[in-house]
C-alpha cells in the first residue's frame, strides 16, 4: 500500500511538472507575446526595452527563465507583468472567495443530486422520473454563464430579490455571505445536479436488483432503511469519485465562468483577466494551483479506491 501511495504521489508531481512546462511554453512561443513590450508601457524606446529584458531576464535561454519562474512560484515572489504586483499577495485575497463558492456549491449539488437521483430511481419509468430526467437534461444543456447572467438580471437587478453580484466575507457577516453566494451556488450547481442525479439514478437501478438487497428486504428491514443503508451506500461510490474531481477543479479556480458572471473576484476570474492581457505569471501560477487541486483529489480518490479494493493496487 505504501508503495502504491508513493508511486501515485510521484506520478502526481510529474504531471504537475509537465503542466507547468506546457503552460510556460504556450505563452512563451506565441508570436506578439513579448512581455517586455507590455512592461515598457505605451511608447517604449529601444534602450528601455533592452533594459527591461535584462532586468527581468527575458534575454536568457527559456529553460533558465523557466527554472527562475518556478523558483519564484515556490517562494511566493512571482510578480505580474502588467500590474507588477506580487501574484501570491493578489491570490491570497481571492482564495477565500473561490473556496466559499466551491464548498457551498459542492454541498448543494451533492445534496440535491442525491435526493433527486434516488427519487428518480425509485419512481423509475413513471411520470416523476421522466419529468426529473427532462429537468436534469435541461440543466446539463444550459451554459452556466447564461443562466448566471439571466439570474443576475431578473432576480438581482429587476426584481431585486437577491444582491446583484459581489461578495461579503464570512467573518464580516455570515448571513450576507450566504445571501450573496446563493445565486452563484445555484447557477454552478445546476449542471452538476443534472449530471450526478443521472449517474446516481442508473447506479441505484443497477444495485436495487442485487441479491443482498433482496436479502435485506427478506429479513424485514423497512424500505427506507434498505434504500439508504444498502442501495444508496453502494451506488454512491462512482458519484463520490466524480464529486472529488469536480470539487477539486472548482476549488482550483475552475469555475471561471461563474466567478466572472457574478463578479466574485475569485481565483478563476483573476485567471481569465490575466489571460486576456497575456500576463504569464498569474496564469502560470493559477494553472498550477488549479492543476494541483485536480491532481491532488485524483490521487486521493485513487488511493481511497486502492484501500477499498486491493485489486487496483496491482494495476
Amino acid at each position, binding site marked *: 500500500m505504501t508503495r502504491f501511495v508513493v508511486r501515485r504521489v510521484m506520478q502526481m508531481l510529474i*504531471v504537475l511538472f509537465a503542466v507547468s512546462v506546457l503552460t510556460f511554453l504556450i505563452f512563451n512561443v506565441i508570436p506578439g507575446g513579448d512581455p517586455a513590450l507590455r512592461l515598457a508601457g505605451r511608447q517604449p524606446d529601444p534602450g528601455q526595452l533592452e533594459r527591461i529584458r535584462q532586468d527581468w531576464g527575458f534575454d536568457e535561454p527559456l529553460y533558465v527563465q523557466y527554472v527562475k519562474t518556478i523558483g519564484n512560484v515556490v517562494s511566493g515572489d512571482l510578480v505580474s507583468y502588467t500590474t507588477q504586483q506580487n501574484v501570491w499577495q493578489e491570490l491570497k485575497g481571492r482564495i477565500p472567495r473561490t473556496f466559499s463558492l466551491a464548498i457551498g456549491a459542492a454541498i448543494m449539488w451533492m445534496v440535491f443530486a442525491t435526493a433527486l437521483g434516488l427519487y428518480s430511481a425509485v419512481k423509475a419509468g413513471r411520470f416523476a422520473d421522466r419529468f426529473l430526467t427532462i429537468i436534469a437534461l435541461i440543466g446539463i444543456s444550459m451554459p452556466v454563464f447564461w443562466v448566471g447572467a439571466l439570474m443576475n438580471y431578473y432576480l438581482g437587478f429587476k426584481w431585486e430579490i437577491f444582491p446583484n453580484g459581489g461578495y461579503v466575507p464570512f467573518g464580516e457577516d455570515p448571513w450576507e455571505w450566504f445571501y450573496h453566494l446563493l445565486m452563484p451556488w445555484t447557477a454552478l450547481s445546476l449542471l452538476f445536479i443534472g449530471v450526478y442525479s443521472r449517474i446516481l439514478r442508473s447506479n441505484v437501478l443497477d444495485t436495487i436488483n442485487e441479491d443482498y438487497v433482496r436479502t435485506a428486504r427478506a429479513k424485514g428491514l423497512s424500505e427506507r432503511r434498505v434504500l439508504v443503508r444498502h442501495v444508496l451506500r453502494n451506488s454512491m461510490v462512482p458519484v463520490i469519485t466524480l464529486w472529488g474531481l469536480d470539487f477539486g477543479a472548482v476549488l482550483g479556480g*475552475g469555475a471561471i465562468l461563474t466567478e466572472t458572471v457574478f463578479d466574485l473576484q475569485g481565483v478563476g476570474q483573476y485567471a481569465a483577466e490575466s489571460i486576456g492581457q497575456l500576463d504569464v505569471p498569474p496564469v502560470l501560477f493559477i494553472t498550477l494551483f488549479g492543476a494541483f487541486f485536480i491532481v491532488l483529489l485524483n490521487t486521493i480518490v485513487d488511493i481511497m479506491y486502492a484501500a477499498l479494493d486491493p485489486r487496483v493496487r496491482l494495476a
Partner: protein
Amino acid sequence: MASEPATDYAFQGGPGAFEEEAGHEEVHGLSPWRLALRRLKRNNKVAIVFGVLFLLLVAICLAAPLWANGPADTDPYKNHLTETIVIDGKKTNVVSLDGVPIGPTWQGKFFLGADTNGRDTAVRLLYGGRNSLLIGCAAALITALLAVILGILAGFVRGFTDTVVSRTLDVIWAFPVLLLGVALGTALSLGGLEIGPIKLGAGSKLIPILIIAIVYVPYMARPIRGQVLALREKEFVEAARAQGMRPSRIMLSEILPNLSSTVIVFLPLMVANAILLEAALGFLGVGVKAPEPSWGTMIGDGVKHILSGPHLAIVPGGMLVLTVLALNVFGDGVRDAFDPRSTVRMEH
C-alpha cells in the same frame, strides 16, 4: 418443442435437448446496430423526436441566406444604427438615441430585434448557428478521430506507447479545461499558427475547432483505451493473430469495428459539449473573431449589454440550449439503446 418455455429444458433430456433445439429453430442474428435501432424505436420515441429536432435546427441554420436575403433583407454584418422601422404604423428607431436596441418585432425585419450595433439579431442568430454547429460538429469529429487512434495505439500496442499516450492524456486532463482553452485561444488568436505547411490565420475558425477538439480528447480516449485493452484479449483477436494477421490489420479490421458503438454513443454528447465549450470561449472573448457571429460570442455580447435589452442574451442562449438539449436527449436515448456505460465530464 420450440414452443416450450426455456426453463424446462433441464428436465427434458440433458445436453442433447439443446443441440436438437439449435437445429430446429432458426436463430435470427441481428447486428448490434439493428438491435440498437430497434430498441431506440421501441423504447425511446422522445429521443427520436429530439434527434429530428436537432436536424431541423441544422437545416434552419443552413437556410440562413434564404431568410437574410428574403424577409429580413440584410446580412449579419450590416448595421442599421441610424435607420427607423415601421411597427404598428409607428416609426421607431432601430437603436434608440440612448443606445437601447429594438426588441423582437415579430415581422420580417428585426424579427428578433436588433443588437446594440443595430444588426438584425435573427439573421445573426442563423449565421451564428452555422458557425457554432460547424465548430461543434468538426471539433467532435476530430476528437473522435484522435481519441480512436490514440486509444487503439495505447490499448493495443501497450508498453512504451501506452505510457507516452496515457501520460500525455493525464497532463491534458489535469489542466483546467477552460483555462487550457482560453490560454490556447488567446495565444493562437494573436498571431495565428504556423506548423510547416499548415498556416492558420488569426481569425481562422480552425483555431477554436482544434482547441475544443484537443481539450476533449482525454475524455473519450481513456474509455476507448480501456475497451481496447479488454478487446485485445478476446478470442477473435487471438484467432486473427493465430492466422498470422499483422498487428496493423488486427487493429483496423478486428478492433476498430468493435469500437463503433462507443463512438456513436459519444458523438452526440461530444457535439453538445463542444457547442457549450465554444459558447464559453466566445463568452470569454477567445472564440470566433468579431464581427463573425457565433452563439457563444452573441451570448457574450448579450450578457455584456443585458441592461439595454435582455433579448440580446435570451435569444442566442435559448437557441443554444434548445440545440444542446436536443443533442443530449437524443444522445441519452442512443446510449440507452447501445448501453455501454459511459459518462462525459463537462466544463463549468
